[in-house]
């Protein structure tokens, strides 16, 4: 497949770009942040996402969705990255939907997916337990109890965890932390007895929570995937999330760079535009090259998720790692080249740096994915 957008995809990008720039530019995030909005996102915007077909982007048309693919999802994420738009799109429409879709429980999906596509259901994956992403280290216990299980343990960095209706919880039903075997995924109601949610206000003013599960009882039919063999499903959901974050970071990096480039042309010091200084030109050129190369890696990961889902892991690792480093470079150079104004809260560029840091950390940072690639390449 050619590593470019199709005509339809290009049209979709243009429409998503116009939509997000209009409805949810950086000022939208700023307003939510400064008003200390308790949800941290706009439900009105989320309804508009549903109307655009974004919420159900991966959901088949028969179940009220748009029936589109990962490239299209990535297109939206890139525009979200450009505008720093907070929304449950990643947690619900991509990671959450993937878990449901690939689990494939027809009855459950008939109930949940239309709601999800309509913007009426929020769900999120609760996987991390420590400060660094390490899904195999899952330790939250799932103890058999009657017809079902009892879940006990803590999760952190649960994106949109404070607003989600349902959690997809990775739990240890067998084996020991560090093993892939013995992990089971459960669908847990946020209002279930024993669930305690603490919103964590993050540096990027996006949403996350810490969640405590204190002997939370779930039925056997709360299991997603297979008992003790939830790993492939977990990986599937994570890989979709990682590729989506890579797309977001790519869009974010390009926007930060674009703003920097404009500033380099406009700002004058010593009687000339600072962009005429060769040392800055070379640095800008380097950032540009890094971002261009990342574009290709991100698109490849998204295309491979569409074309050959099971073989996408290596490309996803490459895309997430590279998007993290190139966006980091872009925002660091952005702040530095903007000088003092770039350090002020009033100016937008710092918000890009903040979001880049969080997106780089979420679902595995550069080091995590470098290790992952090395293992996939057998060294």
């Amino acid at each position: 497949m050619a590593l470019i957008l199709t005509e339809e995809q290009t049209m979709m990008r243009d429409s998503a770009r116009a939509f997000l720039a209009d409805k949810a530019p950086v000022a939208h995030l700023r307003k939510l942040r400064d008003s200390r909005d308790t949800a941290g996102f706009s439900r009105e915007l989320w309804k508009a996402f549903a109307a655009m077909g974004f919420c159900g982007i991966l959901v088949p048309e028969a179940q009220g969705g748009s029936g589109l693919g990962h490239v299209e999802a990535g297109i939206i994420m890139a525009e979200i990255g450009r505008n720093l738009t907070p929304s449950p799109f990643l947690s619900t429409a991509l990671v959450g939907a993937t878990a449901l879709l690939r689990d494939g429980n027809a009855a459950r999906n008939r109930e949940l997916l239309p709601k999800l596509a309509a913007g009426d259901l929020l769900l999120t994956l609760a996987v991390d337990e420590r400060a660094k992403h390490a899904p195999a280290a899952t330790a939250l216990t799932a103890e058999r109890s009657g017809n079902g299980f009892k879940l006990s343990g803590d999760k952190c960095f649960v994106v949109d965890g404070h607003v989600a209706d349902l959690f997809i919880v990775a739990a240890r039903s067998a084996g020991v932390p560090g093993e892939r075997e013995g992990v089971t995924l459960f669908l847990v109601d946020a209002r279930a007895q024993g669930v305690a949610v603490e919103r964590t206000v993050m540096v990027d003013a996006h949403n996350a929570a810490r969640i405590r599960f204190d002997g939370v009882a779930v039925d056997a039919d709360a299991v997603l995937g297979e008992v003790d063999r939830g790993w492939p499903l977990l990986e599937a959901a994570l890989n979709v999330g990682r590729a989506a974050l890579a797309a977001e970071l790519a869009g974010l990096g390009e926007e930060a760079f674009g703003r920097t480039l404009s500033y380099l042309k406009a700002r004058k010091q010593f009687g000339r535009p600072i962009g005429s200084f060769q040392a800055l030109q070379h640095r800008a050129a380097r950032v540009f090259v890094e971002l261009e190369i990342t574009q290709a890696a991100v698109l490849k990961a998204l295309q491979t998720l569409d074309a050959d889902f099971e073989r996408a892991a290596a490309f996803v690792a490459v895309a997430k790692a590279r998007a993290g480093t190139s966006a980091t470079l872009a925002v660091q150079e952005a702040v530095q080249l903007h000088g003092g104004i770039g350090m002020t809260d009033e100016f937008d560029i710092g918000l890009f740096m903040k979001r880049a840091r969080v997106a780089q950390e979420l679902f595995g940072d550069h080091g995590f994915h470098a290790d992952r690639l090395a293992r996939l390449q057998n060294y």
Partner: protein
Amino acid sequence: MPDLEQFRRETRAWLDANCPPDMRQPVVADEDRCWGGRKATFKSEGQRLWLERMVARGWTVPEWPQQYGGAGLSREEAGILRAEMRRRGCRSPLDSFGIWMLAPVLFKYGSEAQRHEHLPPIARGEIRWCQGYSEPNSGSDLASLATRAEDKGDHFLVNGQKIWTSYADKADWIFCLVRTDTAAPKHLGISFILFDMTTPGVATKPILLISGKSPFCETFFDNVRVPKRNLVGDVNKGWEIAKYLLAHERETVSSVGLPAGRPLGQIAADTLGSQDGVLADAGLRADIARFEIDAIAFQLALERSGDLLKAGQASPAVSSMVKFYSAELNQRRHELLMAAGGSAALEWEGERSRGGERARNWLRSKGNSIEGGTNEVQLNVIAKRILDLPDA
């Protein structure tokens, strides 16, 4: 040198008797510092007493002549005082831009009347000063500053705006670079003036940084009348003073160095864990060790530059080199701390993260390579003045 020994004995006895116990605790927060001024608030009675007692002895500025509020100590005596204070963990009784920045200017360029008017209140911590240098359109190119001071006979009429004025909202007076000749080449039309921040037409607005609160302000001047006698040095000769003070400031920034304390790898182990005594994340461990190598080497380079200075072999490179490299190191350090801290380091509020301390420090470190002369400016200075590379 019997006198010095006696001075040391007396100093010890006096400090032991007069430095309040809470003034021997390390400074943790900005409120622990005493900045004085008309609006001074003291965090504790100890802080107030300590200032009062030190002022009485002239020891807020021990080497200044007594007529300006100092104690007239010799270099050796002042060294002993500093050493004995350090040994006891005594805090500085008074932090002051007046002492650090304005006073050297007044000693070198001020008139005797100006010294008499301004130095004693500085020494006593009665008047707090701020510095009006940068403007929104004059960052690295400071000399292009646009704040006008029009000659109105007995006074200047000042209009314009300053930025990055640290503590302008808390200061009583400002020393300020202004343009007094708009026709002259940019370096030749600048003057150095002083005025009271309560003068009508002065307004300040604190700047919120990406890391949160900051001491920085924007400062606005709208038809501010400044008496002519508040001009320091000659009219249109302010750039020389500015350069003198910038060099001074660069050295102050330079001497900060890096935080001592636990090696970064051990801090990282708090979140990442260890296996067989080795940090669990091998890639990050290698990055951290590389950082520590550079950090240790940098500390040694600082030490060496001090020794070279003492030996009279100081390189003119030192201040730019130190400024540049310490910014890079501090930024690397905070990037590594963020990587080690993972999602916990991304929390922005709340007790667990101590109000987002790690993230805020990380963001704050991004300013290191901008404030007090950008890293690009430092590299220009090194290339031109030390390596003697030609202009374009």
